[in-house]
């Protein structure tokens, strides 16, 4: 199978490989895929609570070169975007940028899923934190 030069570049020089602390309330983590399917992606975003902008993004991927490239590209695109802008990233954008062949489209779908999962996780944490804050405020009046 021939890879596009962009896939090879991301495979050889993956951007933003790594992990951020899962417990950090400003970090959202998405873990999608399954080992038996041959693809697992972990994608993390760190959101600035003041601005709602993604300051940092990291990934780790078990998968083929196209899966690695899709998640590496996703982290590049996520940095500097607001949470809502991030949710607008579509798998077809990744397919076009990396020139993925039809058999590799699932890699881009997985990357989109990973972005959504990470942001959902971040939002859940924010809501939980907001809940705790209001509880804390509520307590003294009781």
């Amino acid at each position, binding site marked *: 199978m021939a890879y596009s030069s962009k896939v090879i570049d991301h495979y050889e020089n993956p951007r933003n490989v790594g992990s951020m602390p899962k417990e950090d309330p400003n970090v959202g983590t998405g873990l999608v895929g399954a080992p038996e399917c*041959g693809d*697992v992606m972990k994608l993390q975003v760190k959101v600035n609570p003041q601005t709602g902008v993604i300051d940092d993004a990291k990934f780790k991927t078990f998968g*083929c070169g196209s*899966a690695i490239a899709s998640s590496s590209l996703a982290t590049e695109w996520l940095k500097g975007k607001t949470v809502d802008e991030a949710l607008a990233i579509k798998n077809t954008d990744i397919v076009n940028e990396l020139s993925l062949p039809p058999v590799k489209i699932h890699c881009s779908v997985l990357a989109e899923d990973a972005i959504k999962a990470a942001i959902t996780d971040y939002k859940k944490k924010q809501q939980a934190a907001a809940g705790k804050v209001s509880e804390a405020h509520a307590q003294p009046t009781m």
Partner: protein
Amino acid sequence: MAIKLPIYMDYHATTPVDPRVVEAMVPFFTTHFGNAASRNHPFGWEAEEAVEKARKQVADLIGANAKEIVFTSGATESDNLAIKGVAEMYREKGNHIITCVTEHKAIIDTCKRLEKDGYRVTYLPVKKDGLISLDDLRSAISDKTILITIMTANNEIGVIQPIAEIGAIAKEKGVLFHTDAVQAVGKVPFNVNDLKVDMASMSAHKMYGPKGVGALYVRRRNPRVLLAPIIDGGGHERGMRSGTLNVPGIVGFGKAAELCKQEMAAESERLSKLRDRLDDRLHKGLDEIYINGSTEHRLPHNLNISFAYVEGESLLMGINDVAVSSGSACTSASLEPSYVLKALGAGDDLAHSSIRFGLGRWSTNEEVDYVADKLINVVTRLREMSPLYELAKEGVDLSTMQWQTD
């Protein structure tokens, strides 16, 4: 010695033609171009003589009589001829065939087609080491069983089935026994009488001969095996395989067989040392790598290893100057990982992480060292970016995790 890149380590897929084989073939393209079936002029006689010489060379390699060799276009055709030929010829006797889940597709798909025509097929499972259980085989045999077809050596994991024991059981029960011996013939000792094999498929291009030519050994005594042909025509090959003989190919096959017979002992010893060198070096450089299939009953030149937490295609990308194969789904069009590795019950994740190394006549120590060192680097790098490796190092049991799948 400088290494020439890319390195070929996929000798189970095909082999280069030995220059000595090419040399033997060349005249049969140009000066000795006759049709072996032309009975009334010297061009035909020369071609026929060359074919008969090759027939004897192939027969000698497997301890058969030359008359028991039917030349075909390759092992896929040989497998089809053996199975369909027996199925049609012995339909009165029964309609049951026994094979195994790790067979080559040429066997599996042929059996599947026969199932559509009303035959019953038992696909024996394999144990964790890739070998069938003889007890399973015995209990699968019924009075309707007309054929047992079990491969000698597996093309992915290189394990060698207990062929002599299967042959003895088949003989005892009066059932014909065919073996796809493509990966074994010419590489390890294979004698049709010692093994009590009634039919055996072979391919020239797996043993340093040309592509497009193979053979089926068909026993003529005790018992005399009868096959219905699958290709009709001029009645070549004693009516079992019509079609003008591929004379240059057959001459090359014969020469390749002769060379294998002469050099097998030394070559298999050299290759098993080379294989062990590759295995040792990889094990020294990496943790959590697993050999797929029996290490005891195995071809000397095969190594199939799963590199846990790393996906096979991404591994191949990192060693793109080395030609090997992976059981990863991403390397196949089907998006399914290797059915052979799945059958071992090792888990799909390890099937996705596997690489098959096939060493051969021109493999060297330097190549093995280069490949091992390169793989160690790539696996280490990919594990650093593998979420599975990270989870495992955190002590998470991956097998009990709930994965989000579509």
